[in-house]
């Protein structure tokens, strides 16, 4: 089967190994192109005529290894990263949106997001535990049991559960760092100015509406979300305080500074169901 396998994926219409093998080659390549083309509308539009060459290169390099047709684009992304394709970052970003959209976590039972009350100065949130509350800030809403916030249904957060009082990102959240603003890239803006330092993109699916949204953050905040997400996925969710302490230790930074930044960022994310605390 090996010569036939190579023939099936080859971009070059070589001599068919047996009569009508060309029919299979055409079907295989057309089917794979369909799922690839549909997954990357922005990159495909930017590349135009060069898109076919990129797809051919992926197939020539061995094609998909996944038994799931819908995950073939993920294999292309992995190949593009190794091959250092010029638009590997955008391919990755487009794929992350699909991964978040399809993530198996059941988040539909989440309660409606309620914006946190703002103080007279318009600020929200509270300070780093043990470091005081900033003047003028308002207390976060508390339930009858005195707990703050609530968590993702199906992922704990019942009173007394492991997630009570913890800092829990939306379980569909995908986290990646890019060196340029991939979310702005289009046919009209295919090569935006790179960031001075890489930015972290948080991409997640909102409950019920299935809307996929993103938030851009700095590396330290990205690390904090990554840490909190990993902990929650491992069944040991962390409090925001613990997350801040750990990240401050790793980054050799002041916990106060990280807490303030994370607190503001978390509010923006929480409004769109990206985090519960």
């Amino acid at each position: 089967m090996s010569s036939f396998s190579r023939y099936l994926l080859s971009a070059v219409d070589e001599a068919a190994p047996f009569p009508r093998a060309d029919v299979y080659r055409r079907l295989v390549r057309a089917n794979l192109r369909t799922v690839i083309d549909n997954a990357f509308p922005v990159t495909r539009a930017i590349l135009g005529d060069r898109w076919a060459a990129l797809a051919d290169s992926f197939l020539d390099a061995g094609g998909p290894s996944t038994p799931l047709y819908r995950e073939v684009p993920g294999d292309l992304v992995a190949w593009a990263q190794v091959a250092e394709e010029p638009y590997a970052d955008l391919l990755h970003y487009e794929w992350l949106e699909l991964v978040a959209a399809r993530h198996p976590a059941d988040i539909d039972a989440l309660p409606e997001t309620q914006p946190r009350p703002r103080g007279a100065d318009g600020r929200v949130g509270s300070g780093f535990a043990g470091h005081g509350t900033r003047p003028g800030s308002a207390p976060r809403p508390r339930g009858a049991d005195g707990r703050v916030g609530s968590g993702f249904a199906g992922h704990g957060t019942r009173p007394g559960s492991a997630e009570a009082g913890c800092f829990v990102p939306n379980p569909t959240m995908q986290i990646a760092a890019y060196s340029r603003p991939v979310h702005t890239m289009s046919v009209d803006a295919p090569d935006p100015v790179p960031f001075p330092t890489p930015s972290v993109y948080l991409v997640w699916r909102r409950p019920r509406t299935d809307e996929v949204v993103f938030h851009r953050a700095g590396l330290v905040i990205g690390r904090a979300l990554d840490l909190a997400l990993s902990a929650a996925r491992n069944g040991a969710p962390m409090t925001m305080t613990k997350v801040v302490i750990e990240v401050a230790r790793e980054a050799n930074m002041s916990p106060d500074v990280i807490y303030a930044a994370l607190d503001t960022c978390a509010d923006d994310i929480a409004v769109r169901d990206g985090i519960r605390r």
Partner: protein
Amino acid sequence: MEAPAGAVDFVELAPENYVGSGGQWRRRLDAIRERYPVLTHGLSLSMGGEAPFDPSFLAAVAGFLRDVESPWHSDHLCWSSTEETHFHELLPIPFTRKNLERVVARVKHVQNMMPVRFAIENVSAYARHAEDEMSEAAFVREVVEQSGCALLLDVNNVFVNSQNFGGNAWSTLAELPLESVVQIHIAGFSREAPDLVIDTHGAAIDEGVYGLLTAALARTGPVPVLLERDHDIPAFEVLAAEIERIRAIGREVLG
């Protein structure tokens, strides 16, 4: 899913399209399950392939079958992957004694991993291998008899292959192990050349295929018949008319 009540009796799903999926996919699956019995039909097991099965993939499919309470699970008698690559196409296997032995072992393995009975489906083909040692129908019969699996009979595929290889579809049908059929597939094809038709699931059912369905049902007795339509999907009324004709054939043959 939006079909009028009574227009559709059951729905067939490919586990590969749903396992590990949440959001709108999970919601769609739940909605389908609320309204219809679900049968499952796989796409990626590569029953005729040489690459070892991925245990985690088999486990995921088995879990899905339990979730949707499918009465059996089917996949194709073809190969579709090597150890390195999944082609996502139904590729023809050489009908040799050696391959028969391997396929029977693979079917038994899959059967052992599945919570329900496993069935193989005869596939459409556009090429035959020079090393074939028996007919497709004989190969299918041997696989079914030696492994104990069921047969998902695709009457369109029987017809397509008769067009592509010049055989007699009715003779082929008679040679298949129809006593083991648990389900039938029917679909339309596209003719690309006088001696080449492609199983596109993208056209109306051919009259000859209706004829094969009639002959098959007379032998199999009452089994679910699935109308497959993946491309160029017409208004639902058109599909409903095809379903009604399938039902009429069933009433005529089975009483």
